[in-house]
């Protein structure tokens, strides 16, 4: 069993890491064409990311889309999560399901829906269309994180505020909202990272006129490989690993992933 455990863990780690390492090796190859072993070391392809206007524009577009759509996603999700947990609403399960649904369905369905929607309005190929579609699609993530925070919040706190004379509005603003902020930030971060990485919705909504980073990568790959693509991939990999390493160091990653509180006590 111990041998099996070791073999399985090694295999899984190799499976996850192998494609990433190959990409990293290719990205520092001095040669323009992919080859192995690499011929010389060069950071030229990383500089290209910044110097080439095509790449720089794609990075700017993607960052604008991700920053705004994640904010809009939190703005959609937070009032829903709060009201559905704090008030006795008959339709609550239906409304919650409606909030979860876009994300549960394959993204191509949201993508096609957005395409026909903007076509029928005669307003297509704008960056704001991608922002709205991403906000709806990823609002599920802050909805989940804020709802979890509402569930674990001590109900005595807003009650105490109201006993002390605060009206519901004041108690929400001074007690509930500050307690929800961490879960709103987590939801924002998750929506931001996934929006940055999203391809199919952005592609079908943009109608070839707005180019986000994933769209740029796929477009370039159609004309063949450049090491710059590998460099972008490495940047993405680093962003993801850094985010979650920081999360593990300063936040409680295990709790966020739903670990049993008992296992968190087990200090080894």
């Amino acid at each position: 069993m111990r041998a099996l455990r070791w073999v399985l863990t090694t295999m899984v780690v190799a499976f996850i890491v192998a494609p990433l390492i190959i990409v990293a090796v290719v990205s520092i190859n001095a040669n323009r064409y992919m080859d192995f072993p690499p011929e010389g070391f060069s950071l030229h392809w990383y500089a290209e990311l910044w110097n080439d206007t095509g790449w720089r524009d794609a990075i700017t577009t993607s960052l604008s889309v991700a920053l705004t759509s994640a904010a809009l996603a939190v703005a959609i999700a937070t009032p829903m999560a709060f009201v559905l947990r704090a008030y006795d609403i008959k339709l609550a399960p239906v409304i919650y399901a409606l909030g979860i649904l876009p994300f549960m369905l394959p993204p191509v369905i949201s993508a096609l829906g957005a395409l026909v929607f903007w076509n029928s309005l005669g307003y297509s190929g704008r960056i704001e269309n991608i922002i709205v579609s991403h906000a709806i699609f990823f609002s599920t993530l802050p909805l989940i994180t804020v709802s979890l925070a509402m569930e674990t919040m001590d109900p005595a706190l807003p009650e105490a505020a109201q006993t002390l004379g605060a009206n519901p509005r004041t108690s929400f603003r001074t007690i509930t909202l500050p307690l929800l902020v961490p879960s709103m930030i987590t939801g924002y971060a998750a929506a931001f990272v996934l929006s940055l990485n999203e391809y199919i919705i952005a592609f079908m909504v943009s109608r070839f006129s707005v180019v986000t980073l994933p769209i740029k990568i796929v477009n370039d790959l159609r004309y063949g490989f450049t090491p710059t693509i590998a460099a972008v991939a490495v940047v993405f990999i680093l962003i993801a690993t850094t985010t979650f390493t920081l999360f593990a160091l300063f936040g409680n990653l295990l709790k966020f992933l739903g670990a049993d509180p008992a296992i968190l006590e087990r200090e080894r």
Partner: protein
Amino acid sequence: MSEIRRPTRGTWAVLAFPLAMLAIFFLAPFAIMVATSFYHRIEGGFYEPAFELASWERLLHGVFIERTLFSIGICLLAGAVCIVIAFPFTYFLTRMRRRSHVALLVLIMSALALSEVIVGFAWTVLLGRSAGISNILVWAGVMNEPAAYQPSFLAVLLGLCYIAFPYCILALYPQLTRLDPELTEAAQTMGASPWRTFWTVVVPIGRPIIMAGFLLAFVFTLGSYLIPAFLGRPEHWTLSVFISDQATFNANVPFAAAMALFLTVLSLGVVGVVTWFEGRTRGVA
């Protein structure tokens, strides 16, 4: 919150913004998509309002049925491979020391956050002829000349497993951390080998989450677009690829809408089954 209040007019005012957003930008597009599936397609990329069943009839054609069965088949296979590896892996993971436990979770979450674009690209390189596995093997002297392993069925399957595997672990993780260590200790005190304990104690307890994780991986891979498009030939394309292809390059939006609605029904069916299994899990735990 224990103090559950009755909704007032203000409550509905607070809900108005999210509900309006979802109604306008999710429900309305969906309704337009339903209508579009009955529209008439004009050669050259346009469509006009009409009521015809041409797009729906195409769903009954042999090619589409064959594509559907292929998509379901490869995604079920990917889901099965994922869960068979993810279940023992997550079980071991929850029993590791804190340091390796957290390190592995960071690795898995990072893989989960990666774009399908990046994953698809990384696997094309890894399985390709110029800087992939075969080049390493040639360099190490194991092989004589490099070979390309993509596009192929196996490449698509590996790619699908790569994107679904982290989600599978996330589905299993919360329950497996709650597995009482005393249960497995008791089995071993009674003389069962760790191997036997795993099969006779851990697997039966985990059966509902195994099923839920498997179905989640299935729905998730069904939604993958870039992996089959990058790593497969057209005969390895799944429904998601066909829908996007019909909507963009072939410009047959009504047919794409009909296929998308079919995919919606299929996914909702599976999600329904998952919810039912989760309800049962909660009953057990």
